[in-house]
C-alpha cells in the first residue's frame, strides 16, 4: 500500500459539474486518487471523459460556469495539509500554490504562450512572484532553465518571442516555465499530442530527468496507451467522469480487467505485431453527457453487458493496488490467475 508520508496530493470523491442552458453536465463525477512523490500517475481516456477537467479542478482553473460540487483535494505541503477546494479561486493562498507548488504544462504550446511577450519574460514572471530573487538573478535563472531544457544559445533565445521557436522548443519553454519554482507536483495535460514522435521522445527524456532529480510528482494526462507503458508508475483509466480502473502500470497493462481498458488496448495497432494483428474497435461512440446511460456508463458499448449493469457499480479493491468499477470483474480477473497457475 502507498506510504502515507509519500503522498503529494490526494483527491477524494471529487465532483465538478458544468451548468449551461439550465442543464448540468457532470464532467467529473466522483473521482478519487493519490499521487505519490517522485512517481508518475497517468490518467487515460477518450476525449470528453473528464481528464482535463480533473486537472483544471486541481489547479482551480475552471471556467465560471462550472463549480466543484463535492469532494476534497488535499495537497500535502511539507508537514501541513492544504484543502485546495476550500481556497478562494483567485485568493492569495491559491495564487501562492499555483505556479510554485503545483505547476501545469498545457496541451498546445502554440496557444499557451503569449505571443506579445518574450519567452524570457514569461519564464521570469513566475520567479518574480514566487521567489525573492532580484532582476539579475531572475534573468540568470531563466537562462539556466532554458539551458537545462536543451535549448541552444539560451542567452540569445531568452529574448526571443514565441513565434521564432519551433513546436518542440515552445513545449520545452513551457516546461521551463512550469519547473521554474521546483514544483512539488507537475500536471502535464497531453504535453506531446501536438508534437512529432522524435520531439516527443526528447520531452519524455526531460520529464523523466526532472522526476528523478527533484522528486516531483507528475500527473500525466494522455489518450495514448503507448505513452502510459513508457512513463507511468500508476495508471487511472477514466470514462465519462469516473475512474473505471486504477492501479500500477503492471496491474492495468498486464492484467486489464475492466472491459473498457481491454477495449482501449485492443483498439490500437501495436508496433512490431505486424499486419495480422487483430484490432477491435469499440462499438458506438461516447454517450451524450446530457443523456447518460442509467447504470454503468460503459454498458451500452460493452460486450458483456447484463441486467445487473443497470446499477452503477461500486469501486472494488481487487488487491492492494488494483481497483475497479465493474460488476463482472471477477470472471475477467480469474482468467489471469488461471493463466499464471497453468
Amino acid at each position, binding site marked *: 500500500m502507498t506510504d502515507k508520508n509519500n503522498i503529494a496530493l490526494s483527491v477524494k470523491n471529487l465532483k465538478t459539474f458544468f451548468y449551461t442552458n439550465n442543464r448540468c453536465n457532470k464532467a467529473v463525477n466522483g473521482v478519487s486518487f493519490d499521487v505519490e512523490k517522485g512517481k508518475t500517475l497517468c490518467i487515460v481516456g477518450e476525449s470528453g471523459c473528464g481528464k482535463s477537467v480533473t486537472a483544471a479542478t486541481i489547479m482551480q482553473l475552471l471556467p465560471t460556469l462550472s463549480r466543484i460540487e463535492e469532494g476534497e483535494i488535499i495537497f500535502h505541503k511539507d508537514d501541513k495539509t492544504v484543502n485546495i477546494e476550500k481556497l478562494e479561486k483567485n485568493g492569495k493562498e491559491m495564487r501562492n500554490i499555483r505556479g510554485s507548488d503545483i505547476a501545469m504544462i498545457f496541451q498546445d504550446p502554440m496557444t499557451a504562450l503569449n505571443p506579445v511577450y518574450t519567452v524570457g519574460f514569461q519564464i521570469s514572471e513566475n520567479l518574480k512572484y514566487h521567489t525573492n530573487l532580484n532582476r539579475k538573478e531572475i534573468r540568470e535563472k531563466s537562462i539556466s532553465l532554458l539551458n537545462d531544457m536543451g535549448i541552444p544559445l539560451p542567452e540569445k533565445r531568452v529574448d526571443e518571442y514565441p513565434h521564432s521557436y519551433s513546436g518542440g522548443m515552445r513545449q520545452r519553454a513551457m516546461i521551463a516555465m512550469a519547473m521554474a519554482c521546483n514544483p512539488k507536483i507537475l500536471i502535464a495535460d497531453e504535453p506531446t499530442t501536438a508534437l512529432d514522435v522524435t520531439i516527443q*521522445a526528447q520531452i519524455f527524456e526531460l520529464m523523466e530527468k526532472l522526476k528523478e532529480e527533484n522528486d516531483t510528482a507528475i500527473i500525466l494526462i494522455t489518450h495514448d496507451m503507448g505513452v502510459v507503458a513508457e512513463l507511468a508508475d500508476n495508471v487511472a483509466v477514466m470514462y465519462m467522469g469516473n475512474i473505471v480502473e486504477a492501479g500500477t502500470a503492471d496491474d492495468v497493462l498486464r492484467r486489464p480487467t475492466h472491459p473498457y481498458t481491454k477495449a482501449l488496448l485492443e483498439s490500437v495497432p501495436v508496433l512490431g505485431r505486424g499486419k495480422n494483428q487483430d484490432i477491435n474497435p469499440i462499438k458506438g461512440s461516447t454517450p451524450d453527457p446530457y443523456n447518460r446511460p442509467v447504470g454503468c456508463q460503459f454498458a451500452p458499448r460493452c460486450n458483456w453487458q447484463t441486467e445487473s449493469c443497470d446499477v452503477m457499480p461500486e469501486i472494488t479493491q481487487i488487491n492492494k493496488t488494483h481497483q475497479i468499477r465493474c460488476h463482472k470483474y471477477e470472471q475477467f480477473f480469474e482468467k489471469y490467475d488461471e493463466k499464471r497457475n497453468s
Partner: protein
Amino acid sequence: MKKEILKLRDVKVYFPVKAGVFNRTVGHVMAVDGVDLDIYRGEVLGLAGESGCGKTTLGKAILRLVEPTNGEVTYVSKEDDETELTSLEKKDMDPFRKKLQIVFQDPHSSLNPSFTIFGSLQDPLKKFGVNSKEERRKIIGDLLEAVNMRREYMDRYPHEFSGGQRQRIGIVRALCLDPELIVCDEAVSALDVSIQAQVLQLLMQLKKDNNLTYLFITHDLSVTEYLCDRIAVMYLGRIVELCDSEDLYKNTLHPYSEALISAIPVADLDKKTKRIVLEGDVPSPVNPPKGCPFHPRCPKAKDICKTEVPTLKKYSTNGNEHYASCHLIDLPEIS
C-alpha cells in the same frame, strides 16, 4: 505480376519565399525535392515522416492540387495506356480527377457547413453526368450505407455529426465517383483511438470491395505497419527508405527510420526498447544542410555524410526489394 497505377519521376515542389519592398523571390522552400515512386495497383502504400517533411505536399502534387515545379506524374490505366498528368491542361485533367481522389485530414474543415451532406456530395456526380436527382440520391444513399451510416443522414448538416462520422462522409465523398486510387491524408489522425479503429477497418473493407489502391499518408508508424503493404519514409522532401512494411520494422536500414521507430511508445510492457533520442528539430527546407540532409541529427554520421548527398539505392532484405539512401549501409547494392 504487379502493375503500376502511378509513376512519379523526379517530382519537385518548390514554394517561393518572397521578401523585401519589391516582393522579390529570395529563396525556395523545397517541400518535395526529387521523388521517384511507383504505386502499384491494389496495394496500400504508406508515406510516413515527421511534420514538415513534405508528405502532404507530395500527396497533393499527385492530384495537382499543388502544381509540381518539376517532374512527371504518369497515370497508367487498366488497359496500360499511359498519360502524363502534369503537362495536361486544367480541363483535360477532369477524367483523371474521377480516378484519383483524396480524403483530407481534418473532417471539421473539409465539409461546407452551409450545405447538407447531399448538397456537398452531389456536385461531383453532377459534373460527371449523373443527371437525375433520384439517381444521385440513390448513389449517395448506397455509399452512406456502405460506411455504416443511415441513408437519411444525407439531408443533415455537417454540424450534426461527430468527428468519426464526418470522416466517413469524407470517405463517401472520395468514393462517389468510383475512383481507382485514394490519397488518405492523415485520415485517422484527428480521431479518438476507438473511432480510429472503426475507420481503419472500414478503409480495409472498402479496399477489398472496390479494388482500391491507397496512398496512406500518416505520421503514425504503428498504423502504417497494420495497414500498409509497402512504406516510404520521407525526410526533408526526399524518400530515405522504401520497402515492404514488415522489412521496415525487422530490417531497418536507414538510421532515421530506426530512430523514428524507436521513438514510438509501444503499449506493451514486455517490449520496452531503448529509444534513440534525436537531437534538435527538422532543419528548415529553405536551407537544407549540405550532404546528407539527416547528418546533423544522425547518431552514426561520418565525414562522408557531411559532403556527399546519398542517392536512393536498391538492396535486398528477406528476398524483397529494399531501397534506402544512406552511405553507411553494409549490404551489397543490387542494380
